[in-house]
């Protein structure tokens, strides 16, 4: 076609040129200017004729194309352009037919695709609806999980606080157990020392009892000597008494003798005074002896009582020593128990610390879970909104595909 049009336009141009040449040749030069109009008129006329011829030729094929296009525009895609020319219009017709075939395929594909799209849109809408409802359920569950996660965080926080308090209490118990261990050990050492002291005290009391008994024996011997002194003093007193009586009698005889008995009376008086002094001293000795005897008796009694008390004290000390021995053994056993308890409490304190750390980590995880749950919930909300939009879009797509299918149905394809 392009060649044909080219040739046509060349022919027209040659024709015009030929005309011009002819005119030029024909017409003298001094009449060229005045023949110009005629020339131009001739050229235009030739051009018009050529154009009319070409247009009639071209138009006829183009009209075919146009009519075919009009039919196609009505939707009948089965109509082909029946042009077998070899020019460009024929090529155009061929291309048009090819385009029509392609368009038919396309429309067919579009229809089938639109149907598929419609079906998919329907399914997508249904699925979007299901997903939306599932998402709503998921959102509800997520809210529930978020609430639970928040409650879990709160519970874990309380548990963490309680565990921290327990850990502090365990640590304090461990410290007190260690202090108790030290105290019990010190008590055991004191009990052992007291038991040793009690044993020494028992031995000392035994020695004291023995010495008191020895002293009692000595005092009893001393008292016996005092009794002997009393006996001697009694004898002396009796002698003094008799001497006094003798002196009195001598004095009486001297008085009866008169003047001759004066000297004898003096002697008798002196003897009587001596006897009186002896009696007085004997009386003093007896008083002292009685005092010594009485005090010795008191001392002996006190020593005996002291001995009894010391023996009782020895028994008490023995009992105390036995009790201290038992206490020492019990304290040692208790010390061992306390040591075990101390170790257990230290282990417990360490475990409590670990538990606190674990709970804190769990709390952090729970907090993360809660945050994630909140985010998930928000995401679900967004998803719900997106699903809603998708559902709406699916609906729109279904409508669009339906509309497209309706549009496609305009085309006749078979």
């Amino acid at each position: 076609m392009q060649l044909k049009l080219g040739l046509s336009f060349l022919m027209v141009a040659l024709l015009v040129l030929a005309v011009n040449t002819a005119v030029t040749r024909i017409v003298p030069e001094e009449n060229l200017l005045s023949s110009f109009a005629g020339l131009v008129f001739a050229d235009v006329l030739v051009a018009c004729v050529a154009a009319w011829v070409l247009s009639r030729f071209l138009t006829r094929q183009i009209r075919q194309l146009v009519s075919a296009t009009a039919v196609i525009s009505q939707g009948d895609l089965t109509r082909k352009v029946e042009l077998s020319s070899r020019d460009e219009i024929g090529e155009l017709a061929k291309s048009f037919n090819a385009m029509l075939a392609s368009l038919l395929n396309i429309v067919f594909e579009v229809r089938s695709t639109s149907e598929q799209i419609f079906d998919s849109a329907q399914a997508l809408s249904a699925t979007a609806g299901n997903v939306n409802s599932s998402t709503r359920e998921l959102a509800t569950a997520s809210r529930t999980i978020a609430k639970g996660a928040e409650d879990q965080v709160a519970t874990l926080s309380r548990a963490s606080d309680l565990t921290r308090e327990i850990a502090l209490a365990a640590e304090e118990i461990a410290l007190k157990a260690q202090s108790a261990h030290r105290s019990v050990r010190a008590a055991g050492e004191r009990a052992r020392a007291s038991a040793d002291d009690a044993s020494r005290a028992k031995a000392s009391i035994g020695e004291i009892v023995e010495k008191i008994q020895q002293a009692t024996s000595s005092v009893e011997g001393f008292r016996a000597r005092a009794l002997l002194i009393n006996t001697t003093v009694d004898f002396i007193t009796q002698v003094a008494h008799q001497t006094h009586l003798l002196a009195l009698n001598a004095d009486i005889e001297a008085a009866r003798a008169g003047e001759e008995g004066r000297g004898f009376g003096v002697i008798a008086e002196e003897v009587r005074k001596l006897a009186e002094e002896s009696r007085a001293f004997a009386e003093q000795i007896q008083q002292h002896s009685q005092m010594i005897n009485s005090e010795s008796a008191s001392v002996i009694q006190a020593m005996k009582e002291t001995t009894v008390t010391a023996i009782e004290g020895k028994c008490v000390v023995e009992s105390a020593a036995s009790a201290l021995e038992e206490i020492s053994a019990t304290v040692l056993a208790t010390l061992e128990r306390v040591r075990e308890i101390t170790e257990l409490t230290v282990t417990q304190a360490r475990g409590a610390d670990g538990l606190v750390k674990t709970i804190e980590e769990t709390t952090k995880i729970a907090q993360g879970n809660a945050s994630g749950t909140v985010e998930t919930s928000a995401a679900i909300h967004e998803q719900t909104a997106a699903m809603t939009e998708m559902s709406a879009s699916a609906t729109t797509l279904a409508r669009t595909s339906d509309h497209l299918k309706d549009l496609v149905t305009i085309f006749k394809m078979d």
Partner: protein
Amino acid sequence: MLTLPRVLHFPAGDRRFSLPIEAVGEIAEIRAVDPVPGAPAAVAGLAEFRGRIVTLLSLAGPTAPAASAPPAPLSPFDAPVIAVLLAGPLAHLGVVVRGRAGEIEISRQVPDEPNAAVPRDLPVGPGPRPFARAIRLEDGRSALLINPEDLAEYATGQIRERVRVAERG
């Protein structure tokens, strides 16, 4: 210079009695005194001393104030008593000393004071006067000076009265 008479004074009951030194025979320690049943209170009992029987008189009962408690009667189981045995014809009589031997002393009698008060509770002997009178010793203490004969008569009168009562009744 006037020589004050010497007396032997001794306690008997609540009072202090004395005897002229010449009237005292001996001061003896009597181991055992045998009480005489039915005898008057003035008769403490009988004792054997150097082979003779001595009647011991107790001056605590008869001469004690009425308000005071009567002395306990002597018994053979009591400790030896000290008695002042009279001399001369009254050597069979003796006066029981209610005290220690150390309380028997020899002192001098100061002259009698005129208008000296006589204890009203002294027993009256057969005679118009009591067998003892108050004197003062040189150391200022007071004592009752016994008249041995009046004392003997007093004791004898007491025994006779007791016998008479016994015979009567």
